């Protein structure tokens, strides 16, 4: 079996063996390639100074697709068969005589850089946005800020970076597929993606399977092995010394697992579908969830992390799960003897514990779309609006039917009956909690301000919030109380449009 990771860095082929395969990509490019433009600040994916472009073969074209990720929490072995472009590798992507990428040119001209330490990360993120939007038009204003939430700057106050982003001369841009011709890399990239490897060092064993049965078998034979897809959580734990896994399985190469299928009623998400591709899929399918997804981590994180990983990681403040729980989503668990389906509401058994058997992987997520008569409302409260882990999350799915108008006391909703209520709160207990008493209380009641105030009080009695670095328990309780009322106010007249 192959005993190295294949990586292209700025067009150069690297075969990486032994301990180097276990390094964060940021360390590899800085120490082994001496490409020190990529900076390390937080080592936890939360500042973006280490951003690089991750190039992977396009699905149905002879092209490499590029997207920015944080290289500090991406381990080299995860990236088998990829092409990495660092800030140093971007300068060639220009038709201009100044030998700078148009993003680099604009950042100079608009004073987008002060101390320079975050700058390479911003350049990479912006270059990634330029790649993504093929047209020569400017990047839409709304996408600009959303696209840069993963990059922190302490000097500029961001305005001049936005000025730069608005003034990128797209006409000068030489697409990366012209700078780094795919013909020279694609066969090797595809070959690596399709073949397994195993790396054994004195201290560590790493296996990359390409089919699910092999993966299940390895998992069963190596209980407690660390499984990595996007690595956006595991990478942080490794970097901060919280874990030091000796047996690892990189599942990123599993065949046919990254797809997302949509029917009239359901979305089916493959285990390797990134959060970014999930975000794109739900933009029209489940727009309410899309509003949460664009605040989940950052584009740099969503380009690497997977929905399946978010679920299996099982944080009680994970952003996607409350919605999946009230939507009654199911997960497909695949083991050596086949697959089974488990409701998201039955998946967790305790703090970061779940029902996965020793040989099982979570292979698909099946998500029912909200029906016409269902209202889905999702809430995420965090200290900072973007790129912050939730302090508190809430999900409501209300099945609504209309009754005949009553005498009406002016609040506009008294003709709406809650036929069914599903409520989930996160950040208020060791797991994300469904609130059965609150749900029962709401059922078959007429939607009103008083009802929602009372339901908030009941919700408070179903939770056990703690005080931690993110907030006090009192704040979480107050949010638990307030959110139903917030939902009520937000429905406003829009509830009338529910069929």
């Amino acid at each position: 079996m192959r005993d190295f990771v294949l990586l292209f860095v700025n067009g150069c082929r690297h075969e990486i063996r032994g301990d180097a395969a276990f390094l964060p990509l940021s360390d590899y490019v800085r120490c082994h390639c001496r490409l020190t433009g990529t900076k390390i600040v937080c080592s936890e994916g939360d500042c973006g100074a280490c951003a690089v472009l991750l190039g992977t073969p396009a699905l149905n074209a002879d092209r490499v697709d590029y997207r920015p990720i944080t290289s500090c929490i991406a381990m080299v072995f995860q990236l088998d068969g990829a092409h990495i472009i660092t800030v140093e590798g971007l300068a060639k992507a220009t038709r201009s005589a100044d030998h700078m990428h148009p993003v680099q040119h604009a950042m100079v001209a608009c004073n987008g850089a002060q101390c320079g330490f975050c700058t390479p990360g911003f350049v990479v993120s912006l270059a990634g946005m330029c790649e993504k939007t093929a047209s020569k038009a400017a990047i839409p204003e709304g996408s600009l800020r959303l696209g840069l939430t993963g990059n922190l700057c302490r000097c500029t106050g961001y305005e001049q970076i936005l000025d730069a982003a608005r003034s990128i001369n797209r006409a000068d841009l030489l697409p990366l597929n012209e700078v780094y011709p795919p013909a020279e890399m694609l066969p090797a990239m595809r070959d690596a993606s399709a073949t397994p490897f195993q790396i054994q060092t004195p201290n560590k064993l790493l296996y990359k399977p390409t089919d699910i049965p092999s993966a299940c078998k390895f998992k069963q034979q190596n209980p407690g092995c660390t499984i990595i897809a996007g690595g956006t959580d595991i990478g942080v734990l490794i970097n901060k010394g919280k874990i030091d896994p000796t047996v690892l399985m990189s599942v990123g190469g599993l065949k046919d697992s990254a797809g997302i299928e949509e029917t009239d009623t359901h979305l089916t998400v493959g285990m390797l579908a990134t959060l970014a591709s999930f975000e794109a899929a739900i933009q029209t399918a489940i727009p309410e969830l899309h509003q949460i997804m664009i605040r989940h981590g950052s584009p740099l994180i969503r380009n690497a992390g997977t929905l399946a990983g978010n679920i299996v990681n099982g944080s009680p403040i994970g952003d996607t799960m409350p919605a999946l729980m009230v939507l009654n989503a199911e997960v497909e668990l695949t083991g050596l003897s086949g697959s089974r389906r488990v409701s998201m509401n039955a998946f967790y058994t305790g703090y970061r514990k779940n029902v996965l058997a020793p040989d099982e992987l979570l292979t698909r997520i099946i998500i029912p779309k909200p029906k016409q008569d269902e209202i889905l409302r999702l809430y995420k409260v965090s200290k900072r609006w973007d790129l912050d882990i939730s302090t508190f999350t809430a999900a409501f799915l209300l099945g609504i039917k209309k009754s005949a108008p009553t005498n009406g006391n002016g609040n506009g909703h008294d003709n709406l009956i809650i036929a069914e209520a599903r409520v989930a709160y996160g950040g208020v207990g060791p797991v994300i909690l469904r609130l059965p008493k609150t749900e029962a209380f709401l059922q078959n009641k007429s939607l009103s301000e008083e009802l929602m105030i009372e339901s908030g009080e009941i919700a408070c009695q179903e939770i056990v919030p703690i005080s931690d670095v993110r907030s006090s328990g009192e704040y979480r309780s107050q949010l638990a109380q307030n959110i139903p009322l917030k939902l009520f106010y937000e429905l406003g007249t829009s509830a009338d449009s529910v069929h």
Partner: protein
Amino acid sequence: MGVVGKSIPHESAVGHVTGASQFIDDMPPLHRELIVDVVGSPIAHGRIVSIDIEAAEKIPGVARIFTARDIPGHNTFGPVAKDEHLLADQQVTFLGDPIVLIAAETREAMRAAKKAVKLTIDPLPPLFSIDDAIAADSFLTPERKLERGDVETVLSTAFQEQLHTLQRTLDIGGQDHFYLESHAALAVPGEGGTMHIHSSTQHPSEVQMIVAEVIGVPFNHVVCSCKRMGGGFGGKETQAAQPAAMAAVVAHLTGRPARIIYTKDDDMKFTGKRHPFKAFYKVAFDDNGCLHALDLRLFSNGGCTLDLSAPVLDRALFHIDNAYFIPNIRAIGRVCKTNLPSNTAFRGFGGPQGVAAIENIIQEIAQVLNKDAADIRRINCYGSETSPFAPHNLETPYGQTVQNNVLPKLLDQLAADANYTKRREEISTYNRSPAARTHLKGLALTPVKFGISFTNTMMNQANALVNVYLDGTVIVSTGATEMGQGVHTRIRQLVADDLGIPFHTVLVATTATDKNNNTSPSAASATTDLNGMAALDATTRLRARLAAVAAPVVAPPNMPPSPDTVLFQDGEVFDTRGSGPRSTFRDVVCRAHTQRVNLGERGFYATPNIHFDRDTFKGAPFLYFTNGAACAEVLIDRLTGDMKGLRVDLLMDAGVPINPGIDRGQIIGGFIQGMGWCTTEELKYSDTGALLSHSPTTYKIPNISDVPPIFNVNFFHNDQNHISIKRSKALGEPPLLLGLSVWAAVKDALSYAAGKNEIAPLSLPATNEQILMRLTKLKTPARPAPAPLQSTP
């Protein structure tokens, strides 16, 4: 023509955007280089019983391990008092206090060695908060008092005089610098006991001296150089010395290069921050909101040692008036001693905390009187025509008169530009509309008047070295360090113009102590003012010598040589009296060299006309004041406490900007950093004094989406600051204080939920948690208080 006044891009911008700019961690590894790290105290206060390094020393790849007794020179140092130790040997005074210094060949060995060190420490009772320290009478300094007029009488007769009084407190939080580049140093041993330190420092001279003392060599044996920092913000003014000294100890004792790079977590956990403050105040004011007397006590949390806490407290007292004339004032300040890492300089240096105290008072006066806080600010500002104390309302409490005062005009101009009055009406209407069930809006317009100069008069000096080479190019070196603020770019502009040569022919050398000695830190906003002036002092003399050489060459026909009329412009040299022959700078330089004329010059500058008596707290410590104002509008979610900035208008009196593009960056960057301090940046500690918010996952500096969508920045026209370099004004710190406008706008929004004359309390930072919890307790909350809490595990 010249480049001063033009938006020349930052001199390192191309390197920054292409990744070519080198920081300390980017410098290639040197032959036999060692990695340096420390093991610190696991508790915040205690007595060291034993240090066991035996097991750690045996780990393969561990080169050497050192404790306090190994330090060749002094183990103690400190910028003001020598009360800090490099390595603790008896007592530990904060969690992380360094005890054991490890030098290793590899990171793996370092990790293992850190785990293998065994420390036994007897705990002592720790103190963490200002309240704890006050209760325990634990202080680092005696009281400092700023006093004018008769506060006692005014306050005691306030009732008879029909003045209102208000007595309350305000808690002001600290702030982590969160420079992107954590502390870093590389020590390279040289011949004969010499040492070269590459340090990410705002104060190379101090690093040089502390390193020399710690390794026990004369100052001239140590060179400290700093090419650039990845941000400093005050955090690398004094506290870059510790990592530098650690690397130096290893390098000195092993004879090998040694490098230390803090992780972001360690940097945040174990280094100092902006001082938390607590203000107790009593204030008297009339029906118009005009301030008559302020009696205030300020306590700062200095942490475990003095560091710069005394001058930080002084600057807080100097700025307790912000932009307002306060006829009777007594402000007493004191620095608390606690078991936190020693707090240190941070952009604004106490000024922001002083200004927060008075701006909070203004907001509360407005709430008591049911008036618009902007009107209270306007009537109280220095030189206000409507003040009952006019025209005698231009003298600060410490006795310095506000010269060339622009505050009334500046406030009026911003109010007009920002359409303040109309927006106030709109906001009041909104807050009474059904929309206010879920959201409240707030608006505030706050000024700043920031004193420019180090308040320690001695530090207001700088030297510069200018060398001219035979191809006409120039290198200038000063004590100024580059941390992104653009000082090197500005100095290049100044020197290029003064010698009449193109910008690109002037370079600024890496800041280093062998070229510029006994320099002051790059701090107090005054780096360009001081070092630019020193550079021009050198170029003035150089130019005179070159003019004498050029005069005979460029004199118009039949005129005698006249050095005084020789002009240097755009690389050319000519006589302004008429159409004589033109020469070039390069030719004149070569001619001068042939004539054995000195082509290098040393410049010096000491800020004139400033003085301050520390004992009486009186004097004129500042060369001038930089002014500005900000108008901020916020939207608050009443049900979650979430706050969004909707619009900000900034108007900055920067004099005549030397580089408008770079200066604009300083204004916006400072404002957003100040906004972060006021809103989302919360330092949370455990009961044992461990910082819990020690990385960007938990410590939230502003994100790009926190920048208000409408963001207007303008320069106030002021070409009268003749006393400063090229009539510019220092800009490094003042805009940070304008971030308080956002906080004041939050307080304004809360006031709409308060009852008539009810004060909506708000401490700083105004996190969404605090906003919601405050709102819930106000008279007219959107919601009743929650059901009783469940027990919290």
